[in-house]
């Protein structure tokens, strides 16, 4: 399968990329291409011009600062996995990245590409939501910042406008390393049927100071399972309590039947995986 014909432009700077986006007819940005190229091969996407932004240095910066992680949009998944400091400070992220697709995809795919593609079963979506990621965009009007909760507008629809470019993602380092990402993959595609990101912080007495959980794949859109926070904040963790919290958290999603996976099954899977992610995070 071969894509329909297009023009190829390689941008060296963000400004150049934005110019090309404006000038070229039906232009689309090309990052790692691991989602876009398959769509183009099946001719479900047919851009007139591909603007390759993967070699723009500014977009490849990757820093772990004292208060936040700054991930350039063109940082590839395997680079996230290779960062030792990140593993210590925000283990949730490499845990999620490690189960994205397969090694070959992780060598090409980019964090920004995934965010822009906004697949409702993307593993990173749960991480972005749970860890309050902030998306930094550049457009004709300059810089714009979007919070994760405002990012996923619909399936395959992010807050990114056609004339904008996602430059980087900033994730606050606000949580202790009691973190876990757990995934129940679709047996064929490997996408998350339910992927759960969980962050837990404990008070000195062992009770839950704060907790955040987000779920991807199971619902129609990735969602923050706020019911979990409500159920657990200030409480002392127990099996029973985590079970109840998971039940409430899963209820925050909207589910639909999809082939053999009924809405009831999906909600159940969200509940089970929330419970297991909570257990894993709190034990870590």
């Amino acid at each position: 399968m071969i894509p329909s014909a297009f023009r190829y432009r390689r941008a060296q700077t963000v400004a150049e990329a934005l110019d090309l986006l404006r000038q070229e007819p039906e232009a689309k940005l090309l990052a790692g291409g691991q989602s876009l190229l398959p769509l183009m091969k099946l001719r479900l996407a047919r851009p007139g011009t591909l603007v390759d932004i993967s070699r723009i240095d500014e977009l490849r910066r990757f820093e772990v600062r004292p208060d936040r992680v700054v991930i350039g949009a063109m940082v590839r998944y395997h680079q996230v996995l290779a960062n030792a400091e990140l593993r210590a400070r925000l283990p949730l992220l490499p845990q999620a990245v490690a189960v994205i697709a397969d090694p070959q995809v992780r060598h090409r795919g980019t964090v920004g590409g995934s965010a822009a593609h906004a697949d409702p079963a993307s593993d990173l979506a749960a991480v972005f939501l749970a860890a309050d990621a902030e998306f930094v965009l550049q457009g004709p009007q300059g810089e714009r910042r979007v919070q994760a909760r405002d990012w996923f507008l619909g399936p395959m629809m992010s807050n990114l406008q056609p004339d904008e470019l996602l430059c980087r993602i900033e994730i606050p380092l606000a949580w202790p390393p009691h973190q876990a990402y757990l995934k129940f993959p679709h047996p064929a595609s490997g996408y998350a049927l339910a992927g759960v990101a969980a962050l837990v912080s404990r008070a000195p007495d062992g009770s839950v100071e704060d907790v955040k959980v987000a779920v991807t794949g199971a619902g129609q859109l990735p969602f923050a399972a706020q019911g979990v926070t409500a159920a657990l904040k200030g409480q002392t963790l127990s099996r029973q309590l985590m079970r109840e919290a998971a039940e409430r958290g899963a209820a925050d999603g909207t589910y639909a039947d999809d082939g053999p996976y009924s809405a009831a099954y999906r909600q159940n899977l969200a509940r089970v995986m929330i419970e297991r992610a909570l257990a894993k995070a709190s034990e870590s």
Partner: protein
Amino acid sequence: MADERVALQLVINGRLVRGDVEPRTLLAYYLRDELGLTGTHVGCDTSQCGACTVLLDGLAVKSCTVLAVQADGCRVTTVEGLASGGHLHPVQRAFQEEHGLQCGFCTPGAMMLAAWLVEQEPHADERAIREALDGLICRCTGYENIVRAIQRAQALSEASEEPGLQRAEGGRGR
């Protein structure tokens, strides 16, 4: 638009290659149709099967999901470049010795993925090997002997002085 061609230059199996392509040319087809490197196979059209796996700057990638123009300026190693100086790569030897292939169609991709894994994670255990094989669909072997072959390749690589991949890439390994 259809007749636009883009120049590119890359090092394939240690040799400098210059050419020009239609932008829509996938790396897999560039290798197969333009360069005659037919060892790289195309087994699906949704980027699932991994038969087309090659090394791009030392990393396993699916060449059906990389545009040839994206590989401009990069080093590409295909199955034809795995052996060097008449010596089979440890992965090639291991696949042969452990019967890690039957019809041979997914094998080039399986071996390129294995070559990367053996280099990157020389001590990957069986669980990790099976997880890395997420990037491969094999219909013949039930994966059993592919797993055994990768384990043998780990042992062979450890026993040999030179890391296999660097040798295969003409000493320019990462």
